[in-house]
């Protein structure tokens, strides 16, 4: 059974590279570059894991996390990827229910191992 990931990242190059990498690891990947579309997709489709940046147009990664946890009430794992890796941001995201917090630049293989861990 295939695993479907949602990647939310507004930097084109990073997003495309990440999607390429994840597809090469045999995941089904859907990608968007803003928070609104991300929410639309989540409302209508089932994902196994959501990978999102924090800084996004329209809706931030934190808002996405909040809506996924509080409004949709989904347990689906959410991995936060971000450049703003401060301690307080990390704590806040875990309090909101993030499953993993990864600072950029990150290592793709390590991200993959985190994904695998969350899926098991």
């Amino acid at each position, binding site marked *: 059974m295939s695993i479907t990931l949602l990647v939310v*990242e*507004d*930097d*084109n*190059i*990073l997003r*495309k*590279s*990440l999607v*390429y*990498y994840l597809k*090469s690891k045999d995941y089904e990947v859907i990608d968007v570059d803003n928070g*609104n*579309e991300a*929410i*639309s997709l*989540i*409302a209508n489709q089932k994902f196994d894991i959501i990978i999102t940046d924090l*800084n996004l147009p*329209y*809706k931030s990664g934190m808002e996405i996390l909040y*809506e996924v946890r509080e*409004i*949709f009430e989904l347990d689906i794992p959410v991995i936060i990827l971000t*450049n703003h890796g401060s301690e307080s941001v990390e704590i806040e995201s875990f309090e909101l229910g993030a499953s993993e917090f990864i600072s*950029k*630049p990150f*290592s*793709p*293989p390590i991200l993959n191992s985190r994904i695998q861990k969350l899926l098991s």
Partner: protein
Amino acid sequence: MLTKQEQKRISALLSYQILDTPQEESFNTLVNLIAEICNVPMALISFMDAKREWHKASVGFQPTEVPKEDTICQYTINAKGFFEITDTKKDERLIDNPFVVKDPYVRYYAGTTLQSPEGYSIGTVCVLDKEVRELNSTQIQAIHHVAKQVMLILNLKKQNKLMREELDELLLTSSTVTKRQLQNKEDEINYLLKAIKKTAGVLELSPDGTILKANSKFLKLFKYQKEEIYGLNYEVLKFKDQNLSDFGASWKQISQGFAQSGRVVRKAKDNSEVHLHTMYAPIRDLTGKVVKVFKIAQDASIAHQAELKLHTAKEMAEKIAKSKDNFIANMSHEIRTPMNAIIGFTNLLENTGLSTDQVEYVSSVKLASINLLSIINDILDISKIESGMFSVVETEFVLEDIIQNIKNILNLKASEKQLCTRVMLDSELPYKLKGDGNRLQQILINLIGNAVKFTEKGEVGLILKVIEKSETDIKINFLVQDSGIGIPKDKLSLIFERFTQADEDTSRFYGGTGLGLNISKLLIERMKGSIQVNSTVKVGSEFSVTLPFGIVEETPSVHDVSEYSLINVTSLPAGLNILVCEDNVLNQKLVTNLLHDQDAKVTVASNGIDGLYEFSKDSFDLILMDIQMPNLDGYDTTSIIRNDLNHSIPIIALTAHSMVGEKEKCLNIGMNDYVSKPILKKDLFTSILLATQKSKPDANQERNLDLSYLSEFTGGNKEFEHEMISQFISETPKILAELIAENQLEVISKLAHKLKSSFQIFGIPTYTLQLLEQSENKLISTEKLNCLKSIVKKMLDDYLQLIEEQVQS
């Protein structure tokens, strides 16, 4: 006129409600039975009211009723039991009876009464014959049985009826009760709804979001008239950027019957903001389908205002706290800087060929200024304590360095008074520790200083002993002993308090602010240690301090000792080209003079930006970099030079702070060495020599395009990499151009953030972008902004060139 008795009999009869009822099988069967058993052609089950005998069931007898006076049964009724007429012709009473003289010519009669439970005869069961005859006992018995049976049936019926009536009444009462309860509940709900509508805005929506009804409070909140809003979709109350899909998602929940609540911002008719505390209550019908949605909204504008105020207050409090921090740090800097200048120039003055008198005078000035500096330090420390800024940090420091410093001070001070000194170190002491080395040094200097101060003859000693040691932690005892004047027993507890010395006289004689021990004690406690004192007047004192530390390195892993530390360095090779970044004019002069004396070419910049500018114009041998500078400080300037400009020119830090941990910070950022103010010629020259010897001539390293990070994503797929490269080449210059043209810090920060991700993929250093990203929250000069922008532009241009070269190859 009926007798009372008769009335009662009749009412008993009536209570059975049997008169004039249709024929029933049960009675017919019985009457047939008795006719059979008695072998008679006629039998009756009849009931006698006031005027007539009415037949419920009959055999062989036509009329259903007979007037009372014409009946035979009337006599049976009166007899109240079994009554027999063997020959009607012989009975006077029946001479004129129509049923005797005419058809059916009754000759024989036998019957018994039907008795009600109260004992009234309400009717009869009788048999009639046309011949004279007799009944045997069995037949007579049968008549009794049948009568009994009839009464049984009647009584049962009566009971049934009564029970049914009772039941009906019960049902009626209970249904009345239920109705009343229902009514109460309805009333309750109505009151509730009324109360809600009175105190909150209530909106009724259809499941698809169409506005059906709104109460006046709601309309008032949103500044609408009723008519305008009915029939419109709920979207009209939202701001444009509140995307529909957001509404759609939670609406999905609502339309599935899940209540939602929370704080929202909505749009009023005049496009102003309405802050609400809102609750959605979906109403379901019996099948579970949502038929209506109630939205209950409380005005949260006060809460919103409070939040804004809180936010503002918080920001203000943070600003104040920060400016307080800054104030103290600045004051600290402001005060120490001229002090350093005084001491520094006094030192220089000492070496300028003075007369004996002048040497004495200069020496006094120097002593006084060193004292003043120490007093100022104490005051600054106290002011930090007062403002709660009393912090103890955790850094890594080399214990040896501190001991060496203490030794120097001890020996210097002791030699002035011709005292002996002794320093003994436990062999188990580790090389590198984790803790606040700076504070430790401060404490020891205080104790040693006191020991020397209060001792006229004899010895001052420092002994370090390991009390407890594990693999990661250690407790060290520092013992400072002196053979001084001692402290009276009753004053022992007072010495740690602020502004007291053991004796008023001692304070006048020995001088000092009396702050040292108080600070030391607070520091020790903050560092989770302890201090004790033992003393005997005229013999001496012992101060024992125990402190915990973490162990970083047992033995030095790298040979830290420099080859030059044993030689007294007094000169530099001629012709060095040195860039000095220092904001203080006095310090600039100081350093420049020292260097000019050694035939060095000196360029001075008063802040990081000017420094970068000068740096780009000429090729230097090394940079002397002050840490505290306006606009761009020493750390940021060094980072830009090291990371973004990729230059390995030697950089030596100059700083007024004497914090031990700061050395590590400077080295981590990429500086080569560290010289603390007041700048001693020997220290400066040693560092310069070391730095310039170790560096290679071509300091500018060859830049290479590093695609290793990109290939972690692509797995080496050249085609995809080329695609990403093309995208980078086409997109990034545009974003950069936007950034350069932009003046709003918020937008610049966002653009810098955007560029950062792309830069990272291609291995381009992002330190300058980080600074630009963080500029959002700081006051930043146009100068600094432009400098940073131009650095980013240059870097990107260089890298784009590299990329294009790569692509062509």
